[in-house]
């Protein structure tokens, strides 16, 4: 088959030509090889497009001295995203990006190039099955994008208007930038900065040292004595009633009660049950809560489940289930108190009535699906040490998630055990950092970080599953342990 032979001989000749352009060739193939030699100088299609875009941009400007970076910058970020077409639209709106090119294959955008200002950003559809996962598949991106712009305030506003989530509002930074940051819907975070003051690195160091010394002395620990990382916060219509219930049934010891008429209801109290603290707040006589409470499901370990169960019924709770010995070794009962909180009362049959690793009071979440909640807790709140008991059909029957020195339990919703979004008071080493991480992980803010009169710096976020997290760092020691 002469045609087939030509195919192979031609490729051999091309291989030789690519390696050594001047090498002699077969006469028959010479016309092709001449073309092949010339094709080595073929311009890259992307260069042709990019240079044109660069020239067009310049024709819109008066200055003809803009840098040539966009034409061929040496290092270029390549973002992998889920739904590249939507990402391109978003970046156009949010960052005034111009599309230089897009290349599609199998109905997806394999590669696209955008110009943002004078820089090129590449992006393409994620392909986790080929080892190219996007931020969503990875649970976030460790790489941050940074935009240097002439007016950070305007750019951040425009990005937020286009659908980005504000992570840090624009503020003057000690190192000479005025900057803020946003998270885009595709998992990347962007710092948007305007240089307002040039300075040396030595000057930056000096200013940082000055800032540190101006800061009032911090409390020695980021959480008060007696507290653990996780404290459930029960918000109910009748806070005094619930306080009385916990005292009668669980022997709760009240360590703090205050009233501030500003908030809903206005009552705030803290009680200790065994080794655990609980916060209870909300309405009281003459001061209604004015919104639905957030009843919570709690797993409480007691010395004698039967006695406590009877006390709960006597205090007005409804039975969910009388005490029974469970296959996993606890004797367990369930009640719902008059405020709607669910208490799983249990006594472990081991060496101690509280199993190793758990505490007297443990929050018990009942989400529709456990996995995304765990992912959020890991990414935003630094949760570790997840233990899961999964049924053969994939239902997460029971999971224990460690956050700091505490454990949050969960079991996927089934039957009468439906989701009970919970309010948490969570002590973290750096409230601002945790707040940012939570927003990056998809939470929405209901309270920006701020110093509270009671000595904590707090912020509030709500996760995608309806749980509310007060993030707190103790600044001053005001509580008596």
């Amino acid at each position, binding site marked *: 088959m002469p045609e087939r032979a*030509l*195919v*192979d001989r*031609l*490729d051999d000749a*091309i291989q030789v030509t*690519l390696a050594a352009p001047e090498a002699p060739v077969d006469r028959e193939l010479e*016309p*092709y090889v001449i*073309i*092949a030699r*010339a*094709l*080595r*100088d*073929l*311009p*890259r*299609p992307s*260069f*042709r497009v990019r*240079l*044109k875009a*660069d*020239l*067009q941009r*310049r*024709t*819109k400007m008066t200055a*003809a001295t803009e840098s*040539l970076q966009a*034409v*061929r910058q040496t290092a270029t970020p390549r973002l992998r995203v889920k739904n590249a077409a939507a990402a391109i639209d978003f970046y156009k709106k949010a960052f005034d990006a111009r599309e230089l090119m897009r290349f599609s294959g199998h109905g997806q955008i394999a590669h696209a190039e955008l110009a943002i200002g004078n820089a090129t950003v590449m992006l393409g559809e994620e392909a986790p099955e080929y080892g190219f996962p996007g931020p969503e598949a990875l649970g976030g991106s460790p790489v941050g994008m940074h935009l240097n712009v002439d007016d950070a305030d305007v750019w951040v506003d425009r990005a937020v208007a286009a659908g980005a989530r504000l992570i840090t509002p624009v503020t003057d930074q000690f190192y000479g930038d005025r900057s803020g940051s946003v998270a885009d819907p595709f998992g990347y975070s962007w710092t948007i900065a305007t240089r307002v003051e040039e300075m040396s690195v030595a000057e930056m160091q000096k200013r940082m040292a000055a800032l540190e010394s101006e800061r009032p002395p911090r409390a020695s620990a980021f959480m008060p004595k007696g507290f653990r990382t996780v404290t459930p916060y029960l918000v109910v219509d009748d806070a005094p009633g619930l306080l009385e219930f916990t005292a009668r049934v669980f022997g709760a010891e009240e360590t703090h009660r205050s009233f501030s008429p500003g908030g809903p209801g206005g009552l705030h109290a803290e009680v200790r049950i065994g080794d655990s603290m609980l916060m209870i707040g909300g309405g009281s006589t003459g001061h209604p809560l004015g919104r639905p409470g957030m009843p919570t499901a709690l797993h409480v370990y007691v010395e004698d489940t039967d006695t406590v169960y009877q006390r709960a019924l006597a205090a007005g709770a409804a039975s969910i289930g009388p005490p029974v010995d469970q296959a996993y070794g606890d004797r367990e009962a369930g009640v719902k108190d008059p405020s709607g909180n669910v208490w799983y009362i249990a006594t472990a049959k081991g060496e101690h009535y509280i199993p190793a690793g758990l505490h007297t009071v443990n929050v018990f979440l009942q989400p529709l699906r456990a996995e995304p909640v765990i992912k959020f807790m890991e990414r935003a709140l630094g949760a570790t040490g997840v233990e899961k008991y999964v049924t053969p059909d994939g239902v997460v029957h029971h999971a224990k998630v460690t956050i700091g020195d505490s454990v949050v339990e969960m079991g996927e919703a089934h039957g009468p055990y439906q989701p009970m979004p919970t309010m948490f008071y969570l002590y973290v080493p750096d409230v601002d950092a945790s707040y940012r991480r939570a927003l990056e992980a998809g939470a929405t803010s209901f309270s920006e970080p701020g110093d509270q009169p009671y000595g904590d710096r707090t912020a509030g976020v709500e996760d995608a599953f309806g749980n509310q997290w007060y993030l707190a760092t103790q600044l001053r020691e005001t509580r008596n342990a």
Partner: protein
Amino acid sequence: MDADERLQIEAAQEDPARFGELYEQHFERVYAFVARRVPDRAAVEDVTAEVFHKALAALPGFQFLGVPFAAWLFRIAGNVITDRFKRAGATREVSLADDAPELSVESEADASDRRADLFRLVNELPIDQRRVIVERFIEQRSIREIAGRLNKTEGAVKQLQLRALQSLRTRMEGANA
């Protein structure tokens, strides 16, 4: 120079946004001209970019003296190349007179034009042939690599390569006939 070109230049002098049309017409020629003189792709791209930026900046001063626009661009390119390689202290021969000391601007234009024609013809190839040409000659990938990237057999890639070169040869001969 023909009347169309003159009109295009006047339009771009009045409204710089119209420079895009001149770019579209002359990109391949300038690129080919530079590629014949400058050693590597990165330098070719840098010089080509600089030529067009300089041309855009100098366009208001361009005067019609019967010189084709391409020749004007080639002159800018020649200057940029001399400048750049003198500045870099490069010893490599990159002067206009490299292979033909007496080459006139006219025949220079012809040589670059032929190559520019070839580059344009590549853009007219069917998409899968074009992909193979770009991968093979710009990226200089092996047939096996290209087969992997395009999800085709090596035999199919070689066939596409042959078809593309046959088509380019026929068209180039047609253009020069």
